[in-house]
């Protein structure tokens, strides 16, 4: 044990002790020498204790606790069975832990995660932590360990890995460990892959010309000589299927000559298969090439029956059209990159996922792809575009703000979801999905059965002006089992009847178990033009589903019975869209041409035919509105959104509203101009983009030449990258040489990165598009363990490579001291001393008083001791004076009787009257008290107790007896 101070400089205060003593002595006037001495001693001690407490006096004990962190590499380069072997080894080794030892586990790949903090009883069954396993970063794992060790313990790290780090520098962390007195023991995971054939990379030009051949290059490498099957796909079409020789240690390059007759973005995929190949993850590679030609448009038709005639008409206008249904809309951004424009014709939001809408928004904003939305009864507000990424991209808002009298609606949802798995979570999700569709002019209410209060409103029908507040309420709803539908339907009816809205709608979600509502109630609700839709989930029987169906039928609403709960949000979105039907105006009108726009070049005011309907919207601030409908509502609006352009046409292009337009001879010209205006603006001139990937860094290089072949300098190219996880990066390319610009960014995740480079101005972009493919994790680049690195890590940290003889829990790390605070004890003693100090100063006493006090205390102790001893010797029966006297009397009487008998006998014998014995009469015979030792009695005790007098009397009797005997 040792002693130290955390703030030793405070000890300088000791210097003031002497003046303190002097001052104390002078201040204690009138106090005797003895007391003065005591006071000065107390005060000096008190001062010393306080100074030591302030200086942070601590006791340090040598710590015999050892904490070990196991650091396990779970990256992709480690075979899964090796990881399990490592876990088994850890559990086995942990059995040798001593009582004061603790062990923890950290798993790592490209990032570390603490699986288990150091605990005394350690075992691991299964790894729970999820870490990205596409990279190996030993350095960050070591740093995490060093930070996570418990304080004041001996420390040790056991690193279990193959050593193939591809991120960070583990040696730096090893040196850090040494400075922290933490040795690293290393257990090597050997992963020698004896047989591996892989594709190093595939190279294709970023862009090409239609029908111009170019070379597609595939680089292969192998650990052994073999023949492998190489297949190459162009846009999923097989263009090469060939068996090629691959040799270890040689350059294995294969070139394929490719010609692309079609414009657009083309994807290439290469696959290699070889016998006895042990790693499959590195057998695939991707690449891209873009071919510029006529505009390529993706046309999404939302009208199932009365489809627009536009696609064939546009094809005649030299616009390539890919016509699809909403259900076939791509799920990824890279599938859209080959299109210059996306057209949505009367597509409702419930036909697209939220993710697909996000893709559309990113395609327009980040990749410059154009967007044209054609209206109908399923588009814009009625289509549920409110508060979606699609609305963000459009030049119109779904809020109808320019009216004085606004059509609005009221929606009430009744929740009974507690009987399905994650039912309450679904309740929140579907309610939020409905709320998202409603406008600020709509009313929204939610009913449920609460745990404590029965049927209750989460919130009564409320204007959706503060959606954030409603969302916070929705997130806390916990619906319970509902006994009957009757009460909640009645409550909904009563509240809706108070509102004056265009549309009133109720949606019930339940398993159908609650008691069936009164049919008269439903009829009353229906008569009030309140519709009821029902959604049944997980019914106990078909009967329950039938009940729900019957309610919807009587309520003139829709009935849903989804088996897949993932469809629930879309159902509620669609039901909420019923409210938005108020935005549709089905009246004949003539479009008014109010402001010139290039989009309407060649058209004059008054020549636009009549339309029979449109959807009311509100133009955004920077939108241009050349055509308007009734009440100055926008009919045609457009604006720039990021790198792209978006157009909203609020009427339709079918016979429902546009029957006169279809017959108009400028119908196809109008739409061709609209779409051409929206089409992505690509860069002219000669721009070449090349990319190269090294480790986790990708470099983009842009070569800019004008049409005459001269370098284009002083550009400010701006690149937008969308990674495989949909994250967007904005990068500036800097000029590195004449006509050459470059930038770098991290490509840590394998997959396809979409890229668009704007070489023009922000408001007049000229876009070059491309892609980067990171085929597989660099984890598969190394087929051998890096034992050399691991040995260096062990040496640098003061550790060692683990052998079968290694004792992991040997207490050999550098000594660690465990400090113990004692300032609180010092302060406590100081307080006690202060009390004594006050006592001594206030109470006047000298040696005599001290001695007297001492004697008094001693006497008390003696009395107590006597009492204890007395009680030990005297029988249980307390010998009080009265008892003694009584006993004495008995004995005396007995003696008297005895003597009387003796004397009578004598008298009989002698005829002599016995003489009374004076002594006996005057002094009865001695009490029959057992002889006992004379106990030392203090004078005070002897004088104070009433029994003392009796004892004197008894003594007299005893004396008298003695005298008589002597006679």
């Amino acid at each position: 044990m040792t002693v130290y101070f955390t703030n030793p400089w405070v000890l300088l205060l000791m210097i003031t002790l002497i003046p303190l003593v002097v001052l104390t002595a002078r201040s204690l006037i009138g106090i005797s020498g003895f007391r003065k001495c005591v006071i000065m001693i107390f005060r000096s001690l008190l001062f010393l204790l306080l100074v030591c407490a302030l200086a942070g006096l601590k006791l340090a004990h040598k710590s015999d606790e050892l904490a070990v962190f196991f650091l396990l590499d779970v990256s992709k380069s480690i075979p899964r069975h090796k990881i399990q072997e490592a876990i088994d080894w850890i559990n086995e080794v942990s059995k040798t832990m001593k009582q004061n030892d603790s062990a923890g586990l950290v798993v790592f790949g490209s990032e570390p995660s603490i699986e288990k903090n150091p605990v005394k009883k350690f075992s691991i069954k299964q790894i729970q932590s999820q870490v990205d396993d596409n990279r190996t970063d030993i350095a960050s794992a070591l740093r995490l360990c060093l930070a996570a060790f418990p304080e004041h313990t001996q420390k040790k790290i056991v690193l279990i890995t193959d050593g193939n780090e591809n991120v960070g520098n583990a040696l730096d962390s090893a040196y850090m460990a040494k400075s922290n007195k933490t040795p690293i023991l290393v257990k090597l995971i050997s992963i020698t892959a004896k047989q591996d054939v892989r594709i190093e990379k595939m190279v294709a030009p970023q862009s090409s010309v239609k029908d111009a051949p170019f070379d597609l290059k595939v680089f292969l490498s192998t650990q052994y000589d073999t023949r492998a099957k190489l297949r190459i796909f162009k846009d999923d079409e097989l263009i090469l299927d060939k068996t090629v020789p691959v040799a270890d240690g040689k350059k294995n390059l294969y070139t394929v000559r490719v010609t692309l007759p079609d414009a657009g973005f083309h994807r290439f995929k290469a696959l290699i298969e070889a016998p006895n190949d042990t790693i499959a993850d590195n057998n695939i590679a991707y690449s891209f090439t873009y071919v510029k030609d006529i505009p390529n448009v993706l046309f999404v038709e939302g009208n199932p029956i009365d489809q627009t005639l536009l696609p064939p008409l546009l094809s005649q206008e030299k616009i390539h059209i890919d016509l699809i249904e909403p259900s076939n809309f791509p799920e990824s951004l890279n599938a859209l990159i080959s299109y210059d424009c996306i057209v949505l014709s009367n597509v409702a939001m419930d036909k697209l996922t939220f993710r697909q809408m996000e893709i559309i928004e990113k395609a327009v904003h980040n990749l410059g792809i154009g967007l044209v939305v054609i209206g109908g009864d399923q588009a814009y507000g009625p289509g549920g575009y409110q508060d979606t990424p699609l609305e963000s991209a459009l030049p119109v808002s779904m809020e109808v703000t320019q009216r004085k009298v606004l059509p609005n609606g009221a929606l009430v949802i009744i929740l009974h979801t507690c009987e399905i798995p994650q039912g309450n979570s679904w309740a929140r999700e579907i309610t939020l999905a409905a709320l998202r569709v409603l406008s600020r002019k709509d009313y929204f209410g939610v009913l449920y059965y609460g745990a404590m209060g029965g049927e209750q409103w989460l919130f009564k029908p409320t204007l959706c002006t503060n959606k954030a507040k409603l969302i916070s309420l929705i997130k806390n709803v916990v619906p319970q089992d509902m006994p009957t539908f009757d009460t909640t339907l009645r409550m909904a009816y009563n509240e809706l009847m108070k509102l004056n809205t265009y549309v009133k709608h109720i949606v019930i979600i339940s398993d159908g178990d609650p008691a069936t509502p009164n049919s008269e109630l439903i009829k009353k609700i229906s008569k009030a033009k309140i519709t009821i839709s029902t959604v049944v989930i997980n019914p106990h029987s078909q009967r329950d589903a039938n009940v729900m169906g019957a309610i919807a039928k009587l309520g003139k609403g829709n009935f849903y019975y989804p088996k897949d709960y993932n469809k629930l949000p879309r159902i509620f979105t669609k039901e909420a869209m019923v409210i938005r039907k108020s935005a549709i105006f089905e009246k004949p009108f003539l479009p008014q041409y109010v402001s010139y726009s290039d989009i309407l070049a060649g058209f004059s005011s008054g020549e636009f035919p009549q339309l029979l309907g449109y959807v009311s919207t509100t133009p955004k601030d920077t939108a241009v509105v050349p055509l308007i409908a009734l009440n100055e509502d926008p009919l045609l609006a457009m604006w720039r959104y990021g790198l792209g352009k978006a157009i909203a046409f609020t009427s339709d292009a079918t016979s429902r509203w546009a029957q006169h337009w279809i017959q108009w001879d400028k119908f196809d010209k109008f739409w061709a101009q609209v779409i051409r205006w929206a089409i992505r603006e690509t860069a002219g001139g000669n721009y070449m983009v090349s990319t190269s990937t090294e480790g986790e860094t990708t470099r983009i290089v842009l070569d800019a030449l004008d049409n005459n072949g001269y370098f284009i300098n002083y550009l400010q190219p701006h690149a937008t990258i969308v990674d495989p996880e949909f994250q967007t990066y904005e990068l500036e390319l800097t000029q590195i040489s004449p006509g050459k610009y470059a930038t770098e960014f991290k490509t840590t995740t394998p997959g396809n990165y979409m890229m668009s480079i704007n070489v023009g101005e922000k408001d007049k972009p000229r876009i070059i598009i491309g892609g980067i493919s990171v085929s597989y994790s660099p984890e598969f680049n190394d087929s051998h363990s890096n034992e050399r690195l691991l040995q260096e890590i062990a040496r640098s940290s003061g550790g060692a490579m683990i052998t079968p003889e290694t004792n992991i829990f040997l207490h050999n790390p550098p000594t660690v001291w465990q400090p113990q605070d004692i300032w609180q004890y010092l302060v406590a003693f100081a307080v006690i001393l202060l009390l004594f100090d006050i006592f001594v100063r206030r109470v006047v006493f000298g040696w005599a008083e001290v001695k007297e006090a001492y004697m008094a205390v001693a006497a008390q102790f003696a009395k107590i001791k006597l009492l204890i001893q007395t009680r030990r010797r005297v029988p249980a029966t307390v010998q009080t004076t009265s008892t003694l006297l009584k006993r004495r009397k008995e004995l005396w009487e007995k003696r008297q009787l005895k003597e009387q008998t003796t004397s009578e006998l004598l008298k009989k014998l002698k005829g002599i009257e016995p003489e009374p014995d004076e002594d006996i009469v005057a002094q009865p015979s001695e009490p029959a008290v057992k002889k006992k030792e004379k106990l030392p009695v203090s004078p005070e005790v002897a004088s104070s107790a009433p029994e003392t007098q009796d004892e004197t009397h008894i003594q007299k009797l005893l004396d008298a007896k003695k005298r008589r005997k002597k006679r």
Partner: protein
Amino acid sequence: MKRFAFILTLCILIGTACHKPNPGDKRADIVTVFGSAGTTDGKFSAPRALEVDSEGNVYIIDKTGRVQVFNRDLSFKYSFVLPDYSKGTPTGFCISPDNQIFIADTHYSRILVYDTNGNLIHSFGQYGDSGGKMIYPTDVAIDKDGNIYVSEYGKNDRIIKFSKDYVFVKEWGGAGTEQGKFQRPMALAIDRRARLLVCDSCNHRVQVFDLDGNFITSFGSVGKAPGELKYPYDISVDAEGNIYVCEYGNCRVQKFSPDGKSLALFGEAGRNPGQLNAPWGVALFGDNRIIVADTGNNRMEIFRLE
């Protein structure tokens, strides 16, 4: 010093007097709270039905499909699992005088009969509308002659009577609010006067019939005041004929005299001891206690009757 002690004492007294007792701290009414959320022995997941046999053993069914049995000292005895509960679990059962367990297997349209060792003895009933068929049986009661009474909802909302040999005898009721009709009858009990008491839950009342189905009386109406009910889900009768009704909607148990006069209230909405959260069941426990299935709180609560 004396003044200081006086002031201190005064402050303590005032502070004690000002302390408002937590409404849940009605510890004078509580004997114990036992169980907590879980799926292991002695733990519960939304317990909905319970009974106490003549020896004081407590039987509890929860949403995990287990029937757990506890000794009278509430120590765990044993458990068994119902044959199927994926569609849902029973909401009521009873224990016959000869210690057989009759379970209303609600979502399987049948009655399961077990012995007290957890062995399935018999099963009767099937989905249907008439002739002894049922849709959602909610509870079972047995009279002294062994006749079996089953309450049912789901379309028919009625009482079905079977003989002790499981043969259909008669049925009465039907969906409605009128006298003799039901809306979700949830529980049954038979008192010593051979009256059948029915928790007519969605009509917020208790209806009383003779054992042939003839209406005698009813009591209760929707509300929270003494004498009013909200979704009565279970019912028990003590030796004196007092009636204990478990109110799912009011989160309490209400005691009535044999003629339906409200005598006492136990519990209120909440999660503290003495409070209840959507309780589903009540049973007599010993001479002076009742045990309540505090479903929403995943536990049992025992109240002392005073």
